[in-house]
């Protein structure tokens, strides 16, 4: 997947939300409790990301990020990673479904080029190839 540096990389949405599957990608440092935490000791920032499966129990998610106050997310992950909210919208028919894969990464880096040319593309490919998502909702902290 190639990224444009000069133009806004706008992809039109031509479907209907009620027939669309939605993936979440968050920079809020969200990951499963049994996944390796992001390395907050690295002053340059952790360039990794974690795959979060569609059937995740939200109580099994946590945040590792030292550049915002995530105490609210610690008590309700939906404030930065609205996976249960997405399920609500599916149940009410607002969207068709929840994608098979979601992604958490730590949105802080001093390695912008590596984030832009490496991590971001890898995340886009994960979503493109394995999630069956029609649209993506991005969140920060």
């Amino acid at each position, binding site marked *: 997947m190639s990224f444009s540096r000069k133009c806004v990389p706008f992809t039109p949405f031509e479907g209907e939300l009620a027939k669309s599957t939605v993936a979440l990608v968050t920079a809020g440092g969200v990951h499963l409790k049994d996944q390796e935490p992001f390395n907050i000791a690295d002053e340059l920032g952790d360039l990794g990301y974690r795959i979060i499966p569609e059937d995740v129990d939200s109580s099994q998610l946590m945040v590792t990020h030292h550049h915002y106050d995530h105490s609210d997310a610690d008590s309700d992950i939906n404030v930065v990673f609205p996976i249960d909210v997405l399920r609500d919208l599916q149940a009410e028919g607002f969207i068709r479904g929840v994608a098979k894969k979601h992604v958490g990464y730590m949105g802080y880096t001093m390695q912008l080029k590596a984030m832009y040319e490496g991590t971001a593309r890898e995340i886009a490919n994960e979503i493109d190839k394995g999630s069956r998502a029609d*649209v993506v*909702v991005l969140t920060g902290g």
Partner: protein
Amino acid sequence: MKGIPTVLITVSPEVSAQMRPPRAIYPKGFKIGNSLGKPGMRELQQAVLRDALTLLTENTRPGKIVTRDYPGYGEYHEPPRVKNLS
């Protein structure tokens, strides 16, 4: 590969605007760490997510961040500013 449509929920609109996101919504006055609202405010969280997704169906201008008010949040936090913004 034609790309996947995205919509961003941001609580740092000036910072996010620098990256010129294709579509973005700013829930006005929400603090960092509360992109969808506060813990347990499920109806508010649903409203923010519905509004974000609905932006996909609207004729938004790429790179523009849409501000929405959610009085139910009950607080106002000044968003971070970008220094030397011209």
